[in-house]
Every structure is written in structure tokens, then in C-alpha cells.
């Protein structure tokens, strides 16, 4: 049976892992490759590395680090941050990344999703969506959410579910949905919007933002039906360890890969 996935996320600046609260206030969380090896050994199902300064400072992404990660770890990993075009993507995949995640650039030019999917295959194109509540998008029955870009600083006027459907229609292979409302505050994932995005598209949804307890993971898998859950600081700072989390989730009837 296909397992639900637990994905530690490493936000990278200058080769080191950092983690902020609500996208700012960065704290150092250690060497990226060492952390990646630790998580792989602990049973993480995939890893995600986001070059958080790439868009802001217009830096090219971190190919040397990606190569070192590919050398050391034997599980799939996604890289993102500041990817602008097919040649950025080609270089990252050649460096050993399995998937790339695009965010701001996909909003600026949605056709980039089509061309990347065509050239490299949908399976390696992850569309990251940073979402924040906006009552302007409320309907009589549902709360509205807006897409933000540029590290969560710029509102786009796009509604989250319709943007997710467009990205899916253009050929992306997964949606990484981050609730900025919930990110870093450990009150649980944004269940309602995660569930609605998942019901609207035929590809996996990775829920991100808000994990604080093991029960939060149970909720995102059982109530929001996420395919994967991504978290950062709770893993980096050992508030929850992956082996314990997987045992807990298995005990709650959620299929976990307990590979040796």
C-alpha cells in the first residue's frame, strides 16, 4: 500500500539550514548535508531543500550543495528557490535533484510549468504555493485564500484553489501548499484549504506550515487527506523525531513506510 510521506524541509542560506517564524526571524539549524543524512537514516520519505535567499537576492541556486546531497543520500529530494527557466532546472536535475519546485516564476509566467513538464516530465515539477487567508475570496460556504510570492511578501490577486487547478492543468506533478498563516506557529496545518486543493486536482498535495504536535500530522492525513506532510523546525530542533512520529501515525492507522 502506498504510504503517506513525511518530508523534512531544509531552508538553506549559504549552505546552512535556517528556519524562521512566519517567513522571517531566521535561526541557524545546522549543516545541510549532515542534517539530510540524519533525516534519511531516521526514515524520512523525501527531503526538500529551499534556497530561501535565491529570489530575494537574485542569487543563482546552490548547485554545489545539491551535488553533495546527491552524493550522500539515497532517498528522493526536491530543490527550489529562485528557479527561473529550463536551464536552471536542467542544471539542478543533472546535479542529482529528483524534483524541482517553482513558485514565484510560475505565477509570473505560468507557461513555464508547461514547458518544464514537457521537457523533464511532470513527475519532477512541483508547484509551490504560499497561501494566506483573504476574505475577499470568501464564498458563502468557504474561506478564501490568496496566493503570495517572493518569499511570502507579495500578494498576487490569485485565489489558491483556482491557481492549483491551473498549475495541475499545465502539467505540474505535485502541489506543495504552505499556509503562511500557520507557518512557524505550531498550531496545526491549514486543514480546510489543504483538503479543498487535494479534491480539486488529480496529483499529490504536500501540506506545509503549522506542524507542532504529532496529532497535527494525524489530522492533515485523515481530515485533509494530504498525500505528504512537510515540516522544518520541529524536526531541526528535535521537538518531534521522525521515528517516533512514524510509529505514532502507524498506530493511528496511517500507512507509513517503515523501511529498514
Amino acid at each position, binding site marked *: 500500500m502506498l504510504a503517506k510521506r513525511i518530508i523534512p524541509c531544509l531552508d538553506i542560506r549559504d549552505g546552512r539550514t535556517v528556519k524562521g517564524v512566519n517567513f522571517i526571524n531566521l535561526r541557524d539549524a545546522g549543516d545541510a548535508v549532515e542534517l539530510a543524512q540524519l533525516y534519511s537514516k531516521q526514515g524520512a520519505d523525501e527531503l526538500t531543500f529551499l534556497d530561501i535567499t535565491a529570489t530575494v537576492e537574485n542569487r543563482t541556486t546552490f548547485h554545489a550543495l545539491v551535488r553533495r546531497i546527491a552524493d550522500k543520500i*539515497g532517498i528522493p529530494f526536491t530543490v527550489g528557490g529562485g528557479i527561473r527557466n529550463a536551464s536552471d532546472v536542467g542544471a539542478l536535475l543533472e546535479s542529482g535533484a529528483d524534483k524541482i519546485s517553482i513558485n514565484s516564476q510560475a505565477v509570473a509566467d505560468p507557461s513555464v510549468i508547461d514547458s518544464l513538464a514537457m521537457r523533464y516530465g511532470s513527475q519532477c515539477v512541483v508547484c509551490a504555493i504560499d497561501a494566506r487567508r483573504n476574505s475577499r475570496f470568501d464564498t458563502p460556504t468557504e474561506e478564501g485564500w490568496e496566493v503570495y510570492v517572493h518569499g511570502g511578501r507579495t500578494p498576487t490577486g490569485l485565489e489558491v484553489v483556482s491557481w492549483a487547478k491551473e498549475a495541475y492543468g499545465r502539467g505540474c506533478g505535485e502541489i506543495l501548499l504552505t499556509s503562511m498563516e500557520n507557518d512557524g506557529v505550531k498550531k496545526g496545518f491549514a486543514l480546510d484549504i489543504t483538503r479543498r486543493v487535494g479534491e480539486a486536482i488529480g496529483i499529490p498535495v504536500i501540506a506545509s506550515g503549522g506542524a507542532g504536535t504529532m496529532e497535527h500530522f494525524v489530522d492533515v492525513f485523515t481530515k485533509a487527506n494530504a498525500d505528504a506532510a512537510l515540516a522544518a523546525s520541529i524536526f531541526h530542533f528535535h521537538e518531534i523525531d521522525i521515528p517516533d512520529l512514524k510509529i505514532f501515525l502507524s498506530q493511528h492507522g496511517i500507512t507509513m513506510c517503515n523501511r529498514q
Partner: protein
Amino acid sequence: MKIAIVRYNAGNTRSVLCALSRLGYEATVTGEHEELRRADRIIFPGVGEASTAMAYLRNCGLDSLLPTLKQPFLGICLGMQLMCSSSEEHETRCLGIFPQEVRKFKAPNNEKIPHMGWNTIDAGDSPLFNALEGPLWGYFVHSYYVPLCTHTIALSEYASVRFTASLRKDNFWGCQFHPEKSGSAGERMLKNFLEEV
């Protein structure tokens, strides 16, 4: 031992190279016929689309060479699918090593396609799975599958279909999952392919 990884336009070669290197092996990525003939082991990885990959293989004559090779040969993911007779992916004629048709997953219960992530592998008795105890998990990413057949040596299940996770005919082996991305069990399978087959 000379290990050759087939160079073509649908490779995920660096991941395979890295996994081999962690096992202490070096490999050459090559499309040269003579070099492929001389290798002790051949690995045929693949990520991408079947018709584009087959067009490339035909263009450089690899479509006629690969089925004639005699050394242990391992196709991974798309590589394994290309070893079959045909694929529903753009109605592509493939290499014909395994007489199977590759089919697209239907999603009878709105399952997400591609089948992506870790799934259990039910493996039979085969040197490829030597020294692998307990539940066996592999990392899969695919929208097409090889139905169960006489060559199946391991199976998995998704979207109400039991399909071939691994198969073998003579010197030809295939894995639908990615051993190079399946953690230490996957590395053990690669090691078995190099040392036990």
C-alpha cells in the same frame, strides 16, 4: 568490474552513479556500442517519456544492440518499460525483450496519478532480493505499469491493480521502483545485482 550505464536522453544517471559510488563501485556512462558490449554489468535507467526515448535509441542504433547483450542487464523505471514489447504511452513500440505491453494506470477511485512515493514490494525468491528481510519498500514514480506476467519476480499494488515491481528473463532484469532512491534496501538490491547475479 566494468559497469556501464546506458547514455540516452531519458537518464537519471547521476543518482545511479552516486548510489554505485556509495557501494564502492565506479561506472561509465556511455552510448558506445563496443563499450556496452565489453561491460560486465549494464544499467539502463530512465526518467521521461517512452516515445521520445525510443526515438533516440533507434537513432543511435541502441534499439538493436541492447536486446542482443549477454551480460546482466538492469532496467530501472522507464528503462524497464522500454524493455517490454510496447507501451500505451504514445503507442510506442519498444525493445521487445519482455513480451509485455506497458499499460497506463486507470484511477477507478480517483487515485492520484502518477503513483508516487513509497510502496510495499512483495518479492519472490531471487538473488536480486538476497539478504533483504522483513517488509520491503521501494520508491516509485510512474504513470504506466507492466502487468503481472511469467517473468514477474516481485509485485506491488496501486489504484486497484497488482503490477510488476520487478521482473527477469535470462540476463535481463527490471525494476519499476528506483533502487537508487530506495534507501539502504535499494542499495542492497544494486549490490546484489552487481555481486549475486
